């Protein structure tokens, strides 16, 4: 398959992840949307590394760093979500509006 096909799949995944994050059903749902966005970026990195041989392995290494940071982000984000839950009793983003009042 050509490069454009991979870029198209990556764009669709990015749109789905962005819509998940914007739908704001729960904080964990938002975090899952962010993971989907990072996955879409990874597809781009690996596809460019494959179709442009002068990039070589550096694209895959960048994708590995993205996965590392995604793991760190998931751990921290989940800890914050649990803290929010123990404080507010809910993880719906629409209910957590203490600063707005």
């Amino acid at each position: 398959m050509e490069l454009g096909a991979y870029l198209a799949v990556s764009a669709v995944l990015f749109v789905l992840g962005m819509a998940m994050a914007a739908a704001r059903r729960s904080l964990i749902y938002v975090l899952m949307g962010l993971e989907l966005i990072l996955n879409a970026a990874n597809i781009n990195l690996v596809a460019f590394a494959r179709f442009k041989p002068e990039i070589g392995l550096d694209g895959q290494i960048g994708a590995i760093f993205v996965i590392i940071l995604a793991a760190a982000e998931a751990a921290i984000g989940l800890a914050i979500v649990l803290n929010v839950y123990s404080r507010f009793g809910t993880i719906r983003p629409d209910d957590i509006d203490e600063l707005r009042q």
Partner: protein
Amino acid sequence: MGLQISFWIFSVIAVGGGLIALFERSVVRSAFALFGTFLGVAGLFLTLGADFLAWTQVLIYAGGIMVLYLFGLMLTKPSPFERNLRRIGLALGLTASFALLFFWRLFAGAEWGALPAAELPAPEPAARGIGLAFLRPEGWLYAFEFASIILLLALIGSVYIARRRSGPPPAEEAS
């Protein structure tokens, strides 16, 4: 030919999982749909010749991060998170139109110098090259060590943030 078939299979799995995750009523079920998406993306990595990255994706995303999110969903109240179709449609339309615009702009003047698929060299196993690139000072050694420090900090920080504090929570005092 086989690569094309597997590309279509894996991209349908990935996109379908994402669609189910977006439109599914229960958040737990959309978390399970994301398993499919991550496995599909791992398959796409395989068709791109990134074998090490594909298995890393399966291990860390499907095995680690999604299980973490499932734990998070089960540690919080299983309240009915309503599916606001209007908001989902609005977000989907807005981001899709921006992405289409961006994609079209990219493709309008795109000259990336990418090889056509027929001329690509056969992929080699990438694990050895990645390991060598990580552990050479002229490669990515410092970034590699920095990433390990970041992971350690994230581990300690998340344990500190999520630990159960003694005494009444401040929210009850305020109310």
